[in-house]
């Protein structure tokens, strides 16, 4: 720990033995049950998925440059947006933060040597790989053109290959459930001495809430995709109107998972930001309990909001109203977090580093994205916006603007923790600014497109929408450029980066109580927690207490 005074600071040393070099060879990685190595493998995998999804996204944007066909045919376009959705959501978003940072940091933050079930953890990763392979093989086998929502009866009648994707998702669901289960048990049983529930870092709280959703909601989507698969292959008629089935029932079952799934993606992001803000502002987390409980609140209330995806689907007006009003509560919980994050900055000692740029962007994006979510949950407004680019822009504000920003915050904040090396700060700033800018340029035009009435999943569109589409594509290329810069300097840092030292940010999160990168079993001796995390006073110093 770098509690030491800056005056006698010696140059940082790279720990001679750590989890990265404790064992050698590919086999030692593939059979590892070390949560940190599993996290690193997740990192590589989700980055690959993100790259793939990103390439699809760019292809879609280029296709939309002109109102007519540009670079691909309609069927290719339809398959591509399906793959973009499936890959980004199921292969990247859902495992990204829990799989990578949850796995890496949860035991460190708890002062544990590993997660509760290390072998199960490895199994999750393997299931993720198997599921991902099957999903992607479906792409090679002809591709699926249903959109990631698989609405029946289109999905059960489409001539394209659907089964591999459904099977892959079913397996990915298992992976997600097992990860969640593992984390819940870990948090319950493996907290270090002195680490009570109200001392947990907020990232842990967020992962806890996320895991609850994963465990409770994922079985339902597993069953649902199975039923669609059975219906498509066997003609069971459960969602088939010509046999008396109800396609709206499918929508209910699908969104019972897929709405909470949004919180599976965004809650860990909120956890990352809660911790990173405290670390970079050198401040205790303002309103700790409110943030912690609001995570649980979102997890809980998020289950009662799925019906707002069905406002124009033929659902009853009674249900529309009920789900709308509950959706508002999710907004309140998010607003609580935002207020507390901003207040955490108040009277801090803020070091403006790369993650801070993303945090600034994140705060703007989550308020704008969140409140446009409230706007589309306002029933009368949703009638116009439903299934238009407004909705696309809204959820990309949350998914990219909040989740990917948080992923990048986490990546930059914990990069030295994971690999013991620093990236180039200057390039980091440049890429961050590019991404925040490019993101706005990509998605703000899409809000306007939605206002103008352009429906989603449109291969060709009336000419009046072209200007905004071109603007959006231009923004997207900026965004892509930013990501490429990040990839380059991170890979460079991995090999040639400056040695970071054990705690380059002087962060007071518990995960920094060990060397960076950590040794194989995390701690040489079990840490004993004596105070809350993120308290930035020197020992013995008189603490100033402020109430606002």
């Amino acid at each position: 720990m770098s509690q030491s005074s800056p005056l006698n600071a010696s140059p940082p040393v790279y720990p001679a033995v750590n989890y990265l070099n404790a064992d050698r060879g590919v086999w030692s990685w593939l059979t590892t049950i070390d949560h940190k190595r599993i996290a690193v493998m997740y990192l590589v995998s989700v980055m690959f998925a993100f790259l793939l999804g990103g390439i699809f996204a760019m292809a879609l944007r280029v296709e939309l440059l002109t109102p007519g066909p540009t670079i691909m045919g309609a069927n290719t376009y339809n398959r591509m947006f399906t793959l973009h959705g499936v890959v980004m959501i199921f292969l990247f978003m859902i495992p990204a933060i829990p799989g990578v940072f949850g796995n890496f940091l949860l035991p460190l933050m708890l002062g544990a040597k590993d997660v509760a079930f290390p072998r199960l953890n490895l199994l999750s990763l393997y299931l993720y790989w198997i599921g991902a392979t099957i999903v992607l093989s479906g792409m090679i086998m002809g591709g699926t053109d249903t959109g990631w929502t698989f609405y029946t009866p289109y999905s059960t009648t489409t001539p394209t290959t659907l089964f591999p994707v459904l099977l892959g998702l079913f397996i990915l669901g298992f992976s997600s459930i097992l990860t969640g289960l593992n984390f819940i048990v870990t948090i319950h049983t493996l907290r270090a001495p002195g680490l009570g529930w109200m001392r947990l870092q907020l990232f842990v709280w967020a992962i806890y809430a996320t895991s609850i959703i994963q465990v409770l909601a994922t079985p339902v989507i597993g069953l649902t995709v199975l039923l669609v698969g059975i219906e498509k292959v066997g003609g069971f008629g459960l969602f088939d109107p010509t046999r008396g089935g109800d396609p709206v029932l499918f929508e209910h079952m699908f969104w019972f998972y897929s709405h909470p799934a949004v919180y599976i993606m965004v809650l860990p992001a909120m956890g990352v930001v809660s911790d990173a803000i405290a670390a970079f502002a050198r401040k205790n987390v303002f309103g700790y309990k409110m943030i912690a409980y609001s995570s649980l609140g979102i997890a809980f209330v998020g289950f009662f909001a799925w019906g707002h995806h069905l406002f124009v689907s033929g659902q009853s007006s009674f249900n529309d109203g009920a789900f709308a009003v509950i959706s508002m509560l999710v907004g309140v919980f998010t607003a609580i977090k935002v207020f507390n994050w901003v207040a955490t900055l108040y009277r801090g000692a803020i070091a403006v580093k790369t993650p801070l740029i993303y945090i600034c962007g994140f705060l703007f994006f989550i308020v704008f994205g969140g409140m446009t979510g409230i706007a589309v949950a306002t029933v009368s407004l949703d009638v116009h916006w439903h299934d238009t680019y407004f909705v696309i822009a809204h959820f990309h504000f949350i998914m990219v603007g909040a989740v990917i920003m948080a992923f990048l915050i986490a990546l930059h904040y914990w990069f030295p923790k994971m690999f013991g090396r620093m990236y180039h700060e200057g390039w980091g700033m440049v890429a961050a600014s590019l991404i925040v800018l490019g993101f706005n340029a990509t998605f703000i035009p899409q809000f306007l497109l939605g206002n103008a009435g352009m429906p989603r999943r449109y291969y060709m569109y009336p000419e009046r929408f072209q200007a905004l589409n071109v603007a959006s594509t231009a923004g997207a290329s900026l965004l892509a450029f930013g990501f490429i810069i990040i990839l380059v300097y991170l890979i460079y840092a991995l090999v040639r980066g400056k040695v970071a030292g054990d705690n380059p940010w002087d962060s007071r999160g518990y995960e920094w109580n060990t060397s960076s990168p950590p040794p194989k079993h995390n701690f040489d001796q079990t840490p004993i927690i004596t105070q809350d995390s993120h308290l930035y006073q020197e020992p013995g110093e008189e603490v100033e207490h402020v109430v606002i």
Partner: protein
Amino acid sequence: MSLSDAQVPVPHLAHHYETIEKQDYAVRLGMWLFLGTEVLLFAGLFLGYSVYRHFYHEAFHEASRHLDLWAGATNTIVLITSSLTVALAYHAITQGKTKLCAGLLTFTIVCACAFLVIKGIEYHHKFQEGALPGKWYHYGEVTAPGANLFYTVYFLTTGLHAIHVIVGMSILIWILARTLRGHFSTTYNVPVELGGLYWHLVDLVWIFLFPLLYLI
């Protein structure tokens, strides 16, 4: 799954736990969480049942009368009895009675087989009658609209349940093998307990399926 942390013959304490009690606690919590996911998995199917029963009340009522009540009732009794024996098996192993435990587990597995055989005979009849799901439906006896959906729901729920019976049975066979090899004792018996929990869940699901499909 949760069992995996205890695959070594002696009560094995994984390096990241301090005490066996804590490890057992973790493993039990993990199992209950898994049972929770199973509950929600079946909840989706029960939802399908409820929705179509709501729509096609008549057809469901009529079609339920064409299921073999005695096969269903026998299966209920078989499963309840097997649930009893698996509970007794756990009780026996906590008292160190390995042979009794093995015997009771064997009986449970036989019950599971009996259940599957009876279920298979029922399925066979349905296949012959043409009382099949969705587009395969060509059963003349029940003509009310929605009858095909009753059989869709019937085959989906009982089919998924049967898969769980097979999985549960496999777990019990594995536990039986380990019991016979003397892996369990008064101090170490968590796998028996967890296998039992899974089997009870299979029983639980059937307790609801039986009246919903056969009786009303």
